[in-house]
């Protein structure tokens, strides 16, 4: 079994706000992230797939196909978007990095027919990242 990771970047804006609690409570939980004018990040996404090395090609996955799927299923929908306002998963869910990693996993799972998805890692900042392995 070999693991392969593809890295890409996207930039998006968001804010954290739960309409079910008061403005003061939102401010307490989310701090400056609760500002409804939003703010932005340069995200780094790492998608790790796993599989056996094909004896003929020496590849675990067709990288070109992987890149096309990543572009189509993830980057086209997230890059230079406002996550709360334009991305369907976050119309009713807070676009934290945790939820973003789950959403990206769900977008790729099922579409990624060329290899088995192992991990989705999303960096919001160089010192903060989230991993999701598709676990319940």
């Amino acid at each position: 079994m070999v693991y392969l990771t593809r890295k890409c970047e996207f930039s998006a804006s968001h804010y954290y706000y739960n309409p079910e609690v008061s403005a003061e409570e939102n401010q307490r939980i989310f701090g400056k992230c609760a500002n409804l004018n939003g703010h932005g990040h340069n995200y780094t996404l790492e998608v790790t797939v796993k599989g056996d090395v094909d004896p003929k090609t020496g590849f675990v996955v067709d990288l070109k196909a992987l890149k096309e799927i990543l572009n189509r299923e993830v980057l086209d929908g997230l890059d230079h978007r406002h996550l709360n306002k334009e991305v369907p998963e976050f119309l009713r869910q807070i676009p934290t990095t945790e939820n973003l990693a789950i959403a990206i996993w769900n977008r790729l799972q099922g579409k990624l027919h060329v290899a088995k998805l192992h991990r989705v890692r999303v960096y919001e900042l160089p010192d903060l990242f989230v991993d999701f392995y598709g676990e319940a």
Partner: protein
Amino acid sequence: MKVHLTRRYLFSASHRLHCDELSESQNQATYGKCNNPHGHGHNYALEVTVSGQVDPGTGMICNLSDLDRSVQSEVLERFDHVNLNARQEFAATVPTTENLSEVIFNILKQSFTAAHLEKVRLEETMMNSFEYAGGAELRV
């Protein structure tokens, strides 16, 4: 859904790798320049990985400010700008980064309970890093 979150912190400390049970020449052979008598320092980068279910109300595993507070008060204030050999945590062990990883994991396991502590990863230099997950297998 179980999600893993990692936060990175920086601290600087000095140490000297030396084992009292070994002779001078054995220490030199084992630790090389890390055995030099007056010690030396590193800028350490610490990555703390926690995991848990995403709270539907907040969208978060745990509040980052709680994690920051624990790491700041329990780890960084203890080890930043100190000589590790002089700390009581290393009274009986050599302050290698292996041992430091284990010490930090055990400190955080006690003090941070808002999410499950998965592992700590400690970079001693850009060229080497160490991971400790309380004895559990590491994820890729």
